[in-house]
């Protein structure tokens, strides 16, 4: 076929620039969505601890919705659907301020929050009942039991799964290309359609995704070993 593999052509000048902007956008999207996911995930966990049935149902519905609807569809609901419900002024503001980035971050963050809430809950569940009883019997109240006994252990257990969620979130930011967010996958397609260097462009993107993913995976397995509870 006489095809010359030429990485230099996609890694120079404005194309290199596009890749760098893409990486920066992917990282920014991951970070914003991650913060939202943690805040919302912890909030959901706290809501679920309130012994009031309708609130429990609300959290269950929230989790099931985000786990059973494709993420791309959730992004579409936020990007195409939600602004149409907002007043005109809000719509104009969204359009003027890179709304697609913001709405993608909201969709990704809220979806990840469902998984974060589940991870924290299984951390809490994995603390044996005897720990509560022992803590209560030596005089801790509910908050003291939670704050000094249960949560320090539960969060430790939840760290490796949460790092895994971070990996999934990082990979899922690629879906934002479907609504025109200029992240790595989107920029890669742009480079590809300008240079016709399909193989090179996607090789670069693949290498970048793999590097970051492997770093997150390594962090995950390190924390798994490091934070393992030593039971005596």
């Amino acid at each position, binding site marked *: 076929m006489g095809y010359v593999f030429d990485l230099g052509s996609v890694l120079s000048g404005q194309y290199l620039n596009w890749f760098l902007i893409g990486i920066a956008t992917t990282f920014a999207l991951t970070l914003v969505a991650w913060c939202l996911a943690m805040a919302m995930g912890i909030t959901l966990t706290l809501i679920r601890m309130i012994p009031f049935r309708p609130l429990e149902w609300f959290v269950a519905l929230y989790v099931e919705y985000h786990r059973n609807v494709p993420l791309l569809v959730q992004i*579409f609901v936020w990007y195409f*659907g939600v602004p149409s419900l907002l007043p005109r002024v809000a719509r104009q503001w969204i359009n003027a301020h890179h709304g697609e980035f913001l709405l993608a971050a909201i969709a990704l963050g809220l979806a990840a929050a469902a998984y974060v809430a589940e991870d924290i809950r299984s951390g809490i569940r994995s603390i044996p009942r005897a720990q509560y009883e022992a803590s209560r019997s030596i005089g801790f109240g509910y908050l003291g039991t939670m704050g000094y006994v249960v949560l320090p252990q539960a969060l430790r257990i939840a760290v490796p799964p949460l790092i895994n969620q971070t990996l999934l979130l990082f990979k899922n930011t690629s879906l934002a290309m*479907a609504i025109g967010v200029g992240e790595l996958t989107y920029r890669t397609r742009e480079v590809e359609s300008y240079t016709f260097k399909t193989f090179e462009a996607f090789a670069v993107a693949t290498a970048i995704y793999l590097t970051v993913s492997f770093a997150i995976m390594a962090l995950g397995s390190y924390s798994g070993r490091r934070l393992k509870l030593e039971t005596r």
Partner: protein
Amino acid sequence: MIEIIQNNWLLFLVGQYPHGPIGGLTMTMFMATVSLALCFPFAIALALARLSSHRWLRLPATAIVHTVRGLPLIMFIFWAYFFSPLVIGRAVGGVETLIIALVVYEAAYLSEIIRAGIEGLPKGQTEAATALGLGYWPTTLKIVLPQALHNMLPSMVSQFVSTIKETSLGYVISAHELTFAAAQVNNVLLTQPFEVYGILALTYFALCFALTSLARFIERRISTSRGGTPGVAVLA
């Protein structure tokens, strides 16, 4: 909302068929089923290779699984989109492209499930088989895999749910499936995006939630039939 469903339910269900290619929910289910079925043998092979005592089987399999897990599905879709025509030597449609990408992607994830199933079996099973004089293949095929796959049934149903959700990415390469159909409806109506995508989300939810519930039901059945206590003691 009811009106949109009344006017477009056929498009959601089968796409433009019979005036065009089959799409909609039918194609979504077809692609999910076919790609899961096709990736099954690869997944078993990968799982066995990862558990193999031969280094030269274990290391490449481990590398493949980690590489696939480190990449977004959309990367596989684009690789398949651009390169399967080169490899096959003819134009490849969106549906085939998506199935190729899904088979590669799902095989890695399914292999992890199968591996967990095999590792979850008591060691006594293989030891007893060895003691009876069975070799590697009879042990694997007649003792290990049947039990492991049975125990893994709930996870496989969950994997099927993931696959259904992942077919929505076919939209990106214009494969005719449910999300694509909804986008078409939205392009015609223009003024009711929230309703259209709401219907889309509800459709996926109804389908996937039913399957997730089925997975939970099977899980309870299996754990009771194995004599264990169903579920874990619930605390928080």
